[in-house]
């Protein structure tokens, strides 16, 4: 106990001494500068502006010194010193709390993901493989919307915030487009899968009845007809129209966002952007229309 007290007293003395020395050093430096070579007699403009600059620097240095003096006087008093030392001794504790909090956050996030992964298994009905895949797409979309998408929508700060926002939005639209394409391709591949199954059943039936054709072309014709039938059924379904519509919308959204980012980049170069050109095209179109109408009127007279 005594040792600790002695140790503390030693540290206190050391800090107080250092503060005193530092204050004296910077104080004398400031005084030396203030009494430096007299340039007030200089008559030319350069000397005058130099004096003005030196004066401004000196002023800001003195103001900084004042702040330092005020702080050091507070820190030198015994209560202030004690508080600082407590802070220094408490550093490992603060660090460990910080690490603990970060780890907890990560662990919680991981648990959330695990829970979602568990839900994927729970909502899938046994032997219904179509539902399994569709659920997977729906859950991925939900997971993306709730867990990942938010990161791309964190409010951006500072001078470049609008540019950052546009990049974030483009990444977001690209991810959505990729998900929709995957879903669309999955739906599009279903007739292929089904036609193989139907074909196998048909072949089993034919084999049992001893009616298997001996020409390989006949098998192909049979399969292509089944496949065509499946595609036609799928294409007439509202689910397909919906999936196709969503994929197209996602593609268009991504294209619009991407073009905005490209326009940001092009803005740095002497190159007209798509928007510039479209405005120009519109003006040309309207002018041409007017000229043609006038020309027509003139000939009709």
């Amino acid at each position, binding site marked *: 106990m005594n040792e600790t007290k002695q140790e503390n007293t030693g540290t206190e003395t050391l800090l107080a001494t250092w503060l005193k020395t530092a204050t004296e050093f910077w104080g004398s430096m400031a005084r030396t500068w203030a009494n430096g070579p007299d340039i007030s007699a200089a008559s030319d403009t350069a000397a005058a502006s130099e004096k003005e600059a030196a004066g401004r620097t000196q002023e800001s240095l003195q103001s900084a010194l004042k702040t330092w003096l005020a702080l050091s006087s507070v820190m030198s008093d015994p209560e202030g010193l004690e508080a600082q030392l407590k802070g220094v001794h408490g550093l490992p504790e603060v660090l460990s709390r910080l690490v603990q909090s970060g780890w907890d956050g990560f662990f919680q996030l991981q648990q959330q993901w695990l829970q979602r992964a568990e839900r994927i298994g729970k909502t899938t009905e046994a032997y219904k493989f179509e539902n399994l895949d569709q659920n997977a797409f729906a859950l991925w979309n939900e997971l993306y919307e709730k867990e990942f998408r938010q990161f791309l929508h964190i409010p951006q700060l500072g001078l470049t915030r609008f540019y950052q926002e546009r990049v974030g939005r483009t990444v977001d639209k690209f991810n959505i487009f990729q998900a929709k394409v995957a879903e669309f391709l999955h739906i*599009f591949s279903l*007739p292929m899968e089904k036609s193989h199954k139907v074909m196998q059943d048909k072949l089993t039936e034919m*084999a*049992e*009845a*001893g009616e*298997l054709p*001996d*020409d*390989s072309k006949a098998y*192909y014709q049979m399969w*292509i007809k089944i*496949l*065509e039938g499946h*595609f*036609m059924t799928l*294409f*007439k379904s509202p689910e397909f*129209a*919906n999936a*196709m*519509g969503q994929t*197209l*919308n996602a*593609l*268009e*959204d991504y*294209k*619009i966002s991407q073009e905005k980012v490209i326009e940001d980049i092009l803005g740095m170069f002497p190159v007209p952007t*798509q928007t510039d*050109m*479209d405005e120009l*095209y*519109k003006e*040309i*179109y*309207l002018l*041409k*229309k007017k000229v*043609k109408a006038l020309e027509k009127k003139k*000939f*009709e007279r």
Partner: protein
Amino acid sequence: MAQPKIAVDLILSKLAEDAERSRERVQKASNVLLEPLDTEIATTPYEVVYEEDRVKLKHYHPVTEPEVKTPLLVVYALINRETMLDLQPGRSVVQNFLNKGIDLYMIDWGYPTRKDRYITIDDHVNGYMDNIIDFIRQRCDMPKINLMGICMGGSFCVMYSALHPQKIKNLVTTVSPTNFDTDQGLLHIWMKALDVDRMVDAFGNMPGDLMNLGFLILNPARLMIDKYVGFLENMDNKQFVENFIRMEKWIFDSPDVPGETFRQFVKDCYHKNLLIQSKLELDGKRVDLKKITMPLLNYYGQYDHLVPPAACELITSKVGSKDTEDMCLKTGHIGIYVSSKVQNEFVPKIAVWLKERDEDRRERKANKPPAKKATVKKTGTKASSAGKKAKK
């Protein structure tokens, strides 16, 4: 010994034969594909007689004495190209019309670029088409001309004939959608779900490749698999390969559709079905189908999956004309123009129908075209040893 239910030995021997034939075919095919192939399309000689922006007017060189005095203007769709009517020698609608003594003009809409994105249906119908029709009327000294439309071009012709009936003598529509309120074709179902505003805002013009992808998706089993299986089976046949490549050239030669035109067509036609109800407006002028008083011949395909019969057949009952005729052919959307069997039925019928209605020349002086000076161009024509050939 009992006979086995499945003749496995027969199936296996057939498979072996097939493998042998395939090997021979591949060997022959490599010779066919490596030697020069004639895959040119649109080779019938023509002259570009009028140009405006990206749009050109082709006039085909007559090959016989005219049997129909009134010239015929063919208006193709903005989707794909008019070269489909002249795909290959011996199977060309253009050549067949010329052989029947028809004075033939055809619009080439060209390739719209981004700068054309603001061009509307009105600009096409009351702008380019009207200027071209005035030009032909003046050139031939005729008050009226015959008009034939294909697919979307046919819809444009219907709009034009309703707004300018005094300039059209006879109207022929082929696979032309006018009634969009049907669920018969997949295109009609899908178009209703399309957010056209978002699409046009994103792309400017409707990309031709995206549309082509949509057309392929309409029947992937046939158009993405079976078609190429057919090619593999016949790739040792030079003539087959040449014709196949001609068709590929035409199918994938897809200009973009001007954005505002596409937007209006989808909204006013596919979504609101205004044309057949005589409610469509172009630049504030209502397209009243009752004003179509000239004779109307309406062709469509029974197995057309793009523009089904239900989308075509209503028009004859909605127009003001008393001389109307519906012709349903047992073919698909492009079978009318590329199948030699159907062409033998289709072109002669149109030629006869036009000839029967070509007599009245008294109108000539009554409705003279305005004396407008038009740009006459003589580009795009070249001669070959076998006869004159024209280049796009």
